[in-house]
């Protein structure tokens, strides 16, 4: 018996659109993707969008103005399940980075005293701080294989299993030389795996773009980096760069956030 196709919507809020593009870029799978479910709304790819009840809404991007907050609440109300995709939706992305001065002061620096209307900008928030999120898939951008795995599992009503190991595990599997041992500033030990340790595999350090790994030991990593001669400021900058609102408590303390 053929099961009823689930109604799906994909939405982009504040960010680079990279997560939706990872899907659009999966040319071989794109027609199957459109065939496996009823893609009701996906405005990056099509113009005949239907904004009604959904089984699953996939949300990319952070929430950075009042109108977006209203919109995502409306999507939540009409969706059985809501999935945050990409580090902006999950952690708020680079635009949620803890930096000084305050958001208000920085906003004024960029836009001056000009009055803004219709859209009411607000500091960027992860989707989960505005509405209930049922499942999170981080990555900057998300990994295509991981997305289609998650998508397939959710269509079947299963809970996808996510990696609970750091980038270091994937780096070891690739038999890369450890960059930290060479004194290079790498945050792989405290960053969630899933990218296949792409940067260390190119002789470049992990910058933490998938956000923190569950139960990562940030304190021990901060101590290690200090021992290697990096300043507290440099450590704060690097560890706070991509994790947005998802930075570990000990880094938050360093940042005075």
């Amino acid at each position: 018996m053929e099961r009823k196709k689930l109604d799906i919507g994909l939405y982009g809020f504040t960010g680079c659109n990279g997560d939706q593009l990872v899907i659009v870029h999966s040319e071989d799978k794109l027609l199957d993707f459109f065939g496996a479910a009823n893609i009701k709304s996906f405005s990056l790819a099509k113009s005949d969008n239907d904004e009604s009840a959904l089984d699953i809404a996939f949300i990319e991007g952070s929430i950075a103005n009042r109108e977006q907050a209203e919109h995502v609440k409306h999507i939540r109300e009409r969706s059985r399940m809501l999935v945050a995709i990409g580090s902006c939706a999950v952690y708020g992305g680079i635009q949620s980075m803890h930096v000084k001065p305050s958001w208000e002061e920085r906003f004024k620096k960029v836009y001056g005293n000009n009055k803004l209307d219709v859209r009411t900008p607000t500091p960027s928030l992860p989707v989960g701080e505005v509405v209930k999120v049922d499942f999170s898939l981080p990555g900057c951008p998300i990994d295509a294989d991981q997305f289609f795995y998650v998508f397939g599992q959710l269509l079947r009503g299963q809970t996808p299993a996510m990696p609970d190991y750091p980038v270091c595990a994937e780096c070891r599997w690739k038999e890369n030389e450890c960059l930290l041992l060479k004194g290079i500033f790498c945050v792989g030990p405290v960053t969630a795996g899933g990218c296949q340790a792409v940067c260390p595999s190119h002789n470049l350090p992990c910058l933490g773009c998938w956000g923190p790994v569950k139960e990562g030991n940030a304190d021990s990593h901060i101590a290690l980096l200090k021992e290697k001669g990096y300043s507290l400021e440099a450590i704060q900058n690097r560890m706070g760069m991509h994790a947005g609102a998802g930075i570990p408590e000990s880094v938050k303390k360093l940042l005075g956030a």
Partner: protein
Amino acid sequence: MREILVEPLARVEGDGGITVRIDGDKIKEVSFNVLEGTRLVETLVVGKTPEEDVSIACRICAICTLSHRYAALRGLEKALGITKLPPKAQLMRTLMHMGEFVESNSLHVFVLALPDFLGFPSAIAMAGKYGNEVLKALALKKYGNKIMRLTSGRMIHGENPTIGGFGRYLDRTTLLELKKEAQEQIEFAELGVQLVGGIDIPSYFEKETVFMCCEPGDGEFGVMGDQIRISDGKTVPVEEYRSLTNELFSPHSAAKHCLYQGKPYTVGAIARLNNLGDRLKGRSLKLYEKYWNKRWLKNPVFNNLAQAIELVWCLETIPVLVDAILEIDEDPALVKPSRMDGEGVGAVEAPRGTLYHNYRLKDGLVAEANLIIPTGQSLEDIDKYLRIAVEELLKQKADDQKIRMQCEIIARAYDPCISCSTHMVRIERV
């Protein structure tokens, strides 16, 4: 009062819209709106290292991620006193840039723009009647993505292109595969030009404008340079970009729009072909000679065709680049900075136009950043052409659907990249 709102404008990258308000036979408002949330990227990179800046700045946009990375690298390297890269590193940068042009131009021409002209809501819906074309267009786009993935390390936001060169270079087998595939893809790219070139483009909204693009400086067609070429014949060093882009606050669309000597201007493939098209060679020159005419100086919708011709140019250029890379055996080490304080302006052509990254460094950290993106530069012209089109359509007594469709076609032809819009917030004119 008639009101036509297109929100969101589908099949563009990012959150944008068009507002048309008509009172009787008078236009009250025509504007292309940028609805994207603000990210204040220029303030996020202050205090960061050059490497961190590159990682943050490329995330402005997923389509032009490598153009942002390239512009950031050029600006930062100038500031760091790195004036010249080893030939292999420079060739690899050009190759990665070509990958982005193939990806972005093919995505825009075939997946985002073409459905309008053939009467479909999406490329997927087009697949029924134009199955072969859609599959081949997707294969071409995939090839561009492949170059981006291989050169940068990942499909989007790869970190491999870094300050002073690349973390890792491509092996011989991979390079030869890329060369072979370019030679296989060129036939479809030429067919694509014919397909797009065969579309009738209405002329009622035509008007002269100014075009700007990077001047490669070597007499060849190209998409990077240290000078800017303007269609009025002037050439200006990129360091003087502020005199060209004159950002201003615009009450009706709220983006910081750009004006050149008080006039709107257009950037992108159409600007490059209008300014430099006679420098093309081989197959792309033949196509340029066949399709270019003086209407291109007045009608932005020819941008789709210009992008299609650039695709052929890219596929002709890639094998030449690969051969040149293969002649150099040794992978160069990263070039080290010669100073920690300085300023630099990096300009490259993103697929949708000239992109500037200006940085000032102090003690090796970013002290100040100013980024000017292509879509912001074309915004005044987008509004101008939308207004002319609506004025003319009102004279023709066109219905809302026709007005909406024409406005979408004009805005979409610019291949607007709204995520890129670092300086944009919408204010609606009432």
